[in-house]
């Protein structure tokens, strides 16, 4: 592996091949943990899916209201739920209004705002719910009210659309790398990409299990971004290996990889760092809507940086031997 070769080989300061077992074990560990989280989520009767699906995918109505008071009279979720169960909703003639007994109610910001998850309601019905809330816990700030209703068919379409676009973009990337590099490069790039996406999903499976965090369509967007970023990062190292073929082609592949990783290491770390800066800023200063989105991206990009340094190049000699 470290045999001396005739040309004065550039001696990399950092040899990734010496640490590759560590990188592999770490990745296998993280992947196993993620699979475990996804499996536990799936087996959990209250979730029943690898990730806890949010409103975007399950369909339903979500009502958020902000109370116009300071300080607010304390209100408990159970109180609100009781009120909802007793509420008679208007319904179009000949149809039976959905029952609100199964509503989930969250009290946020120390009782200042309420988040309700209800079965899918039409516009009149959600108005009735808000009017009812206004009499119970009001007055409400009309400018702080938001209502989202997603029909069940739309939810499944959204999920389908997200998955299909993810797979198609994988396929497109694989074709591109196969043509500009080779099949093995493409296969490894996809492996790393799957690794990054899996670990991001795994984290959210655990968050769903332990914290009740749900995934929405923004999460799907973040996965796609992580995938794209992961490939970009990997390609830079590959580009260096391809470029060195002319000068270092006689060296064993392990050496070539070491030189390429060492040469691109600073760039990989700096780029991840500069991309993570705005994301971390979003986590700390961004609105609540973007919080989990930024978390998913931060983790995915950090993992992507790891895999493009520790996995994609070090696996290359292993798979090229055959």
């Amino acid at each position, binding site marked *: 592996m470290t045999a001396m070769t005739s040309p004065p080989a550039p001696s990399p300061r950092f040899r990734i091949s010496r640490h590759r077992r560590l990188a592999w074990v770490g990745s296998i560990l993280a992947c196993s943990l993620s699979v475990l989280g996804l499996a536990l989520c799936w087996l959990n009767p209250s979730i029943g899916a690898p990730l806890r699906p949010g409103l975007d995918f399950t369909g339903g109505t979500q009502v958020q209201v902000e109370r116009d008071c300071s300080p607010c009279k304390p209100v408990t979720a159970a109180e609100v739920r009781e009120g909802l169960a007793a509420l008679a909703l208007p319904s179009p003639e000949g149809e039976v209004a959905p029952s609100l007994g199964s509503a989930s109610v969250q009290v946020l910001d120390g009782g200042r705002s309420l988040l309700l998850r209800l079965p899918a309601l039409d516009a009149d019905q959600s108005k009735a719910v808000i009017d009812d809330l206004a009499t119970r816990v009001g007055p409400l700030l009309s400018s702080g009210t938001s209502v989202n209703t997603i029909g069940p068919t739309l939810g499944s379409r959204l999920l389908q659309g997200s998955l299909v676009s993810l797979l198609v973009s994988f396929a497109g990337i694989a074709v591109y790398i196969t043509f500009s590099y080779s099949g093995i490069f493409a296969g490894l790039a996809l492996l790393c990409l799957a690794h990054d996406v899996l670990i991001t999903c795994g984290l959210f499976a655990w968050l769903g299990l332990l914290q009740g965090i749900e995934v929405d369509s923004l999460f799907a967007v973040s996965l796609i971004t992580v995938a794209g970023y992961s490939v970009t990062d990997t390609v830079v190292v590959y580009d260096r290996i391809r470029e060195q073929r002319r000068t270092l082609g006689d060296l064993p592949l392990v050496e070539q990889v070491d030189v390429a990783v060492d040469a691109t290491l600073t760039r990989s770390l700096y780029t991840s760092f500069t991309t993570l800066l705005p994301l971390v800023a979003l986590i*700390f200063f961004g609105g609540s809507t973007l919080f989990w989105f930024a978390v998913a991206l931060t983790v995915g990009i950090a993992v992507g940086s790891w895999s493009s340094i520790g996995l994609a190049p070090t696996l290359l000699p292993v798979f090229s031997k055959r």
Partner: protein
Amino acid sequence: MGRQQGWFALILALTIASGALLANYGLQLGLDLRGGSQLTLQVMPAGAITRVDTEQLEAVKDVLERRINGLGVAESTLQAVGSDQLVLQLPGEQDPSQAARVLGSTALLEFRAQKPGTEQEMQGLLGLKRQAESVLRSKRPPIALDDPTATPPPPPSSLSAEDLAKALTSLGIKVPAGASEVDQLELLLRETNRRILALYGPPLITGKDLTSAGRQQQATGTGWEVTLGFNREGGEKFAALTQSIAGTNRVLGIVLDGRSISEASVGEQFKVAGITGGSASITGNFSAEEARDLEVQLRGGSLPLPVKIVEVRTVGPSLGAENIRSSLVAGLSGLALVAVFMAVVYRLPGMVAVVALSLYALFNLAIYALIPVTLTLPGIAGFILSVGMAVDANVLIFERIKEELRAGNTLIRSIDTGFSLALSSIIDGHVTGLISCAALFFLGTGLVKGFAVTLAIGLVLSLFTALTCTRTLLRLLMSYPALRRPTYFLPARQLPPARTAAAQPGVA
């Protein structure tokens, strides 16, 4: 040098144009940023049509547009999305329930005559229907009275639990266990309506025969009625229809979307010519609001295919404002940190990159205003990420320049080689990014699309700024001998010893 100046002039012109564009057009903000309501309508296939095509979608859109205009909502937009969906945006509208009511129903109006020999059955059904309706009306949560001076509705004619049960069994309805009285009444109404429809003949006049619709308060009672004007043919058909049932006990049924909303008998005096004059009115005991909704729907015409409201999103303006402010603060502070980082690590070219990246942000926003791109939260996220990619391109170039300098090359040569060597990896990274964007744009749904658009614009622009702006500015600065020092690019200790000595007199 002439070529550099040409590029510089182009960049300057683009900067001025972008500034002017932004000042004049401004950015379009999505509803999640400024508040309002968004309704997604799914066009459902019906009858012989199993797949909705563009032509049918357009036809539905036309009708809906007329209805929206009838509602008089300012600034609303209705857009086709995909092959079978329409998205209606109502900026600033906090209560989309009226729009949902008016747009959601097909508004297929039909006039039908009752079949002969069914008089007795009809009478029984109508009796049940009236009773169930009035009891239900008294049970419903009182909707705000349209007219404060209106007298309260008369006490409901009683329908005891026993009578209700008897009526239900006589119609053969199985009541599910635990159904409330309201649910039972709804079931009763549904069944009576179904049976009443069965007693009608085929539709003789439809909404297509109308020329106008209006509403007025009923001469007697507190309700509203909807007035209709027929075209010539419709007027003739209406006269013939009323003539055929005049003086009998049979009724004229007015059916809206498969629901009998009004049943009228025609007096003996119309036996000769029917009701002529080409107009009619529907007295269905409407509230003012219901009458207005129906009027708008009838004026807009009936939908060629039924629609279903599959999504309603409402965002309050203060939620929107808070989101935009905090996201802006986050984005800007993140970018400021990136700028500091670049200047510290890469020195002179780092500062050049900061200028180039500022131009990059400006061009991006100008393109958003030009196309125009509606900025939503995912869109902002896409923008922030594309900034990350743009920075990456600069980092790749500068690392290469440093490498060349360490290898002992001259400054100008290092810069040129740095740019050309970094090119292939920059292009590979951007192309794979654009492939993802294409997949997301063509296959993804609304939210994902917005992200794909801003990211794609960002990627294309980042290629331009990294390869042109950074390079032109750097070359321009290098024409000043005072700035031509390798130590402005990397710490002196990293330079090969021979170079440090030779670099002092400013080698070109």
